[in-house]
């Protein structure tokens, strides 16, 4: 080995000890990086190892076991730190009235809806999960267009969302899993900023009818703060049709900031659980009594409206 061969940075005329050490190092590096069969790389082995690596990457965070609505406990567990971050740090959710939530029974939670993304459902489910860790996870219902949106749909299903329809809610309640419903539906999601905290009409009374048919307690829930997380300034409806969406919301950050724009604002949230309304004594036949259903629906709506108003009035600011 000549002294001109200085690609490892050995200065000419350096001590022979150093030179020997460099030679040894080079030899070891050569051994390390030359495959055993020196006449070629084993492409098949390389491919197989990559395939295994990526296959396990694909399997990461997802278990092979889902429940009957496609909820994946492992996916929820791996999303937990992120949801906790949103819950504790981002929105600093405070919860009240959760002690009155019936224990050991499936309940139908009815909340005011806000925004297109199911953050409110996730946060109510998280609040219930913290308060009653042993109970089966409460499932939130999501609007049709979101439950069928590519990419969103598999994610939501794995994290406990269920398409909002009566059959699904009844099946969940019958199998002792609580349901979180947003009966304002599309009208609630489509609220613009100046309509915030004005609880819209509750569909056609399906929520009350479901609760009556199954004797499940109705729990009114007011979510304060969520309606400012995505302040929709106005809606673009014509261009949205090209994408098959009901409308494109325009917020201060979306679509101006692109994908970053879907990051919600760090408003201060409070989730208020009202006193549960028992439906068992009315009996399942009451579900066919249209006048009763309509009246209970309207009472529920106005109760949630007043709970929301109290929450909005009593908070010091949107951010604190």
């Amino acid at each position, binding site marked *: 080995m000549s002294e001109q061969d200085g690609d490892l940075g050995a200065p000419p005329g350096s001590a022979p000890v150093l030179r020997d050490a460099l030679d040894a190092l080079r030899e070891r590096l050569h051994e390390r990086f030359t495959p055993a069969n020196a006449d070629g790389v084993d492409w098949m082995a390389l491919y197989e190892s990559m395939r295994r690596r990526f296959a396990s990457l694909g399997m990461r965070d997802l278990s092979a076991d889902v429940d009957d609505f496609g909820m994946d406990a492992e996916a929820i567990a791996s999303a937990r730190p992120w949801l906790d971050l949103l819950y504790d740090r981002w929105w600093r959710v405070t919860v009240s009235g959760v002690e009155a939530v019936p224990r050991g029974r499936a309940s139908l939670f009815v909340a005011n809806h806000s925004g297109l993304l199911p953050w409110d459902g996730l946060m109510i489910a998280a609040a219930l999960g913290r308060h009653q860790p042993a109970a089966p996870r409460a499932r939130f219902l999501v609007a049709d267009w979101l439950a069928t949106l590519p990419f969103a749909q598999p994610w939501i299903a794995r994290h406990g969302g*269920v398409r909002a329809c009566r059959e699904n809610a009844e099946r969940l309640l019958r199998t002792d899993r609580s349901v979180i419903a947003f009966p304002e539906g599309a009208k609630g999601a489509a609220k613009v900023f100046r309509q915030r905290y004005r609880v819209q009409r509750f569909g056609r009374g399906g929520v009350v009818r479901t609760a009556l048919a199954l004797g499940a307690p109705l729990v009114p829930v007011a979510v304060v703060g969520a309606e400012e997380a995505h302040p929709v300034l106005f809606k673009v409806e014509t261009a949205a049709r090209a994408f098959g969406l009901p409308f494109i919301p325009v917020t201060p950050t979306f679509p101006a900031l692109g994908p970053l724009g879907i990051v919600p604002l760090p408003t201060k949230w409070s989730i208020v659980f009202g006193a549960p309304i028992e439906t068992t004594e009315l009996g399942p036949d009451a579900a066919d009594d249209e006048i009763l259903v309509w009246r209970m629906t309207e009472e529920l709506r106005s109760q949630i409206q007043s709970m929301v108003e109290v929450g909005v009035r009593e908070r010091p600011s949107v951010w604190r």
Partner: protein
Amino acid sequence: MSAPATVAITGLRTFIGQRIAERLATRAPRLRVVGIDLRRPQRLERKIAFERVDLTDPASHARLAEIFARERVEAVLHAAFRRDPTPDVETDHELETVGTLQLLHACTAAKVPRLVVASTTMLYGPRADNPNYLTECHPLRGHPEAHCVQNRVQVEALLVDWARRHPHAQVTVLRCAWLMGPSYFDRVVRHFARPIVPTLLGYDPLLQFVHEEDCLDAFEQAVLDAHPGVYNVVAPDPLPLSTILRLSGTTRAPLPAAILYRMRDLAARAATGDPPAAFYDYLRWTWVADGARGYAAFGEPAYTSREAWISFVSSRRLRQYR
């Protein structure tokens, strides 16, 4: 009347027809089986009488009625349906819809007291607005582009009509999910048996199977005992498509729907007569059926969807090394 003395099976060469004929011939020693098909099966138990009838023949109802009366048939299993759709859309319609009409006329003429019809949960249709579990009362919305599915929807409408006009007859309709198992084969199985399975990017619906033995158990009971009504014959515990393919170690090729549908268009039309959406929509939206009614009538199935799938996958592996 509980167990019939003579059973007629249309579509003896179909999977369900052939397997049920064999089961009845071996398990019920005093029962006579009359098998009806277009061609004689290569292998036929000696106890099974074979009759050749072409259901697309306009006079087939008279021929069937004559056979039913002569043999004193007490139960008919109607399984003469296409396993896979063919490009010959006209003949498919003649065989499935009009053939059923011929059979119903023959049942009326021969006063057959029990009719069991093979159907499929595909008739509910893959729809974005399906509930997660479809019960038997859910309307059959089918798939507008899948001609065999539409034929079978019409078959069920004919059956409802016929059952209303013949209240003395016991009509059983068994709607089966996609069959999986060591010996069943159709285009669904072929699709999943590929080394690389194309899927729709961004969609991951829950899929449901039924193991072939569970399906045959239900059919056997429906033929032997009185179970009038419609039943979903499905395995419990549906699994996401992605999980199913991971269980078998199959490589997925997720493609956007627009590209996949355009890519497969010619091949799909040549093979089935339908555009690719007729099949791939079933891998896009959920169409899982609720099996509770069937479990109450025919017992809990031995295999879950996962086990049915694993049974299929392991039998395929064994076949590779044979």
